[in-house]
């Protein structure tokens, strides 16, 4: 069990400033996911914690102990690599046992631990196989087995699912999350896939360009993003960003689009934006918060918008319809049979309670 505390971490690769001042505190037993676009420094951060990269400035503490200059093997952690990094000339049993043998564990104990781990991961029947005789998913499980068998205090995962096909990835996501629930150790997981981050994390740490943009529980980041990047990164399809203006009509604050339509802000948000009127904003709304108007109930804070759908993307359970506000394409999540084809005129409901308003210059949510 381990608590990770990172303060003021910097890492340069030559002139490239890969990690630019990271402060992070991950409590014991938490499943934390580092997520961000490629090149954001998340893997570097993970490798620094593992001790595979030296850092230029700042402190990494595990359980209050400064580990900056500690060798990887003395940090007592386990890591699963993106390409699994199985030892190709050893069979599954030897792969899992390698770390135990390196640490001079008694033979009887090795056998018991390997057998237990193999049973947990459904590898019992594959112990004699070589890595090249295994499928991608099986290799992945061997890599995880190698990590859990060692009783490490901290588990690091470096994009472990990115080499698997979509179906297997869904399956393994669940298995890793279940594993965490069973062994209750601190997990630190790196991915570029926001769905992976949303589904698995206790805490998402969203990074960009070497800094943390926002961190917190997945739903908090999803529902209350602090800036445009976070709002756009999480969610699929991603949030619509519509250039617009805040205007005051009859003492009420509304959002006015390029095409002249105005949508009234809900009552409880009026006072917050009263002083902000007459400024340019970016109006952010998720596709699932735009739906077809069925004319029955008019909920509080839900505004009507008259659209012409020009692109229809059915996915089976949902259909995504695109329409344009000015030159900006906007995606709405509709029911499967809401729209017949392109060119359909459709009255839509926009849930203004869930919309966010963004400053176009700083890209911070106001």
């Amino acid at each position: 069990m381990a608590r990770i505390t990172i303060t003021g971490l910097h890492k340069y690769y030559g002139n490239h400033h890969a990690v630019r001042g990271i402060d992070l505190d991950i409590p014991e037993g938490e499943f934390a996911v580092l997520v961000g676009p490629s090149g954001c420094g998340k893997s570097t951060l993970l490798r620094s914690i593992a001790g595979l990269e030296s850092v230029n400035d700042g402190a990494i503490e595990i359980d209050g102990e400064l580990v900056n200059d500690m060798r990887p093997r003395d940090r007592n952690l386990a890591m699963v690599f993106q390409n699994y990094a199985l030892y190709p000339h050893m069979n599954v049993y030897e792969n899992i046992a390698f770390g135990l043998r390196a640490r001079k564990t008694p033979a009887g104990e090795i056998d018991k631990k390997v057998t237990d781990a193999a049973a947990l991961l459904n590898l019992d029947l594959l112990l004699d196989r070589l890595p090249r005789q295994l499928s991608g998913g099986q290799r992945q499980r061997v890599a995880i087995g190698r990590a859990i068998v060692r009783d490490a205090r901290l588990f690091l995962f470096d994009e472990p699912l990115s080499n698997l096909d979509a179906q297997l990835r869904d399956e393994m996501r669940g298995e890793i999350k279940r594993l965490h629930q069973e062994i209750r150790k601190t997990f630190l997981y790196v991915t570029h896939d926001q769905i992976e981050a949303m589904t698995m994390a206790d805490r998402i740490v969203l990074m960009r360009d070497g800094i943390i943009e926002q961190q917190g529980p997945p739903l908090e980041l999803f529902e209350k993003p602090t800036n445009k990047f976070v709002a756009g990164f999480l969610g699929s399809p991603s949030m619509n960003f519509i250039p617009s203006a805040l205007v005051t009509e009859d003492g009420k604050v509304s959002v006015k689009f390029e095409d002249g339509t105005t949508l009234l802000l809900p009552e409880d948000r009026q006072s917050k934006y009263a002083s902000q009127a007459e400024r340019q904003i970016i109006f952010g709304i998720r596709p699932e918060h735009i739906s077809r108007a069925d004319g029955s109930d008019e909920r509080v804070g839900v505004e009507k918008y008259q659209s012409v759908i020009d692109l229809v993307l059915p996915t089976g359970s949902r259909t995504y319809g695109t329409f344009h506000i000015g030159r900006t394409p906007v995606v709405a999540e509709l029911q499967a049979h809401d729209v017949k084809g392109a060119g359909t005129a459709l009255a839509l409901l926009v849930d203004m309670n869930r919309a966010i308003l963004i400053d176009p210059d700083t890209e911070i949510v106001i």
Partner: protein
Amino acid sequence: MDTLGAHRSPAKAFSAGRFADKNFKYLTIAPAVFLILLIGLFPLVYTLMVSFQNINMMEVDTSFSGLMNYEMLFEESRLWLSLGHTLIFTAIALPIELGLGLLMALLFLERLPGKQIFVALLVLPTMMSPIVAGAVWRLLFDNRYGPINQILGWIAGEPVTILWTINPDFVYPAILIAEVWQWTPFMFLILLAGLSNVDSAQTEAAEIDGAPYWLIFYKIIIPAIWPVMAIALLIRGLDLFRLFDVVYALTQGGPGTMTETISVYAYVQGFKQFETSFTGAIAFLVIIMLTVIVIYALKKMELVEK
């Protein structure tokens, strides 16, 4: 108007074209295969024929003489001594070249400024013709004017006049130094290529698993480069078994026959004594021994899929 095809039987034209089409790949490589057989197989077969005859400077009758030359092989102690010398050279030079080459390759694995220039310089000896390298070393080892004795003299503080190529205590070291100097870079280059292909994630995983460096080296790195290393060992082993140039340039097999390798012995028999048929038998003995060694080594090294 008559076309050309109208005169021929259509079926025949069709079948001829079909033969060329079906066997196009064989027809196109046939000249090359023929040439290779001519220059590769012919000398081999001819040597075999010669080895069963009795061709030398003394005899007029050069006709077929059965296994006479092969029987002579077993009576000739100089042959077996030279085989022993060859094995000594191989047994000493091969591990040294491997060890030094591996050490250098590990050193050059890290990013160094000017690495490519150093690698190119280090590989220069291997690019030299072995007989030229031998001649260079003969000059370096010269007892009066050679820089090696000169430098040793500076270190010792008094003139050093070691007879490198004559003194029985120094001929083996001299030949081995020249041989190792010339061929270690070959090992180095091949092992460097092998090492740069080792998946760094595997060594990192082992590091995190808690393995000390020697264990990672022994359990992860060596197995990973083994196929490349085995080939390098095989190539160098075969080369050393046929060691000729450096020995001939430095000592001509002397003093006496002390450093005579099997190749030097065969050369002396063939081109100094003109025992042509006997030399053919020696050549065939070497071919048979090497074939056995290579087959055994390939099996042992597990390079051939079972």
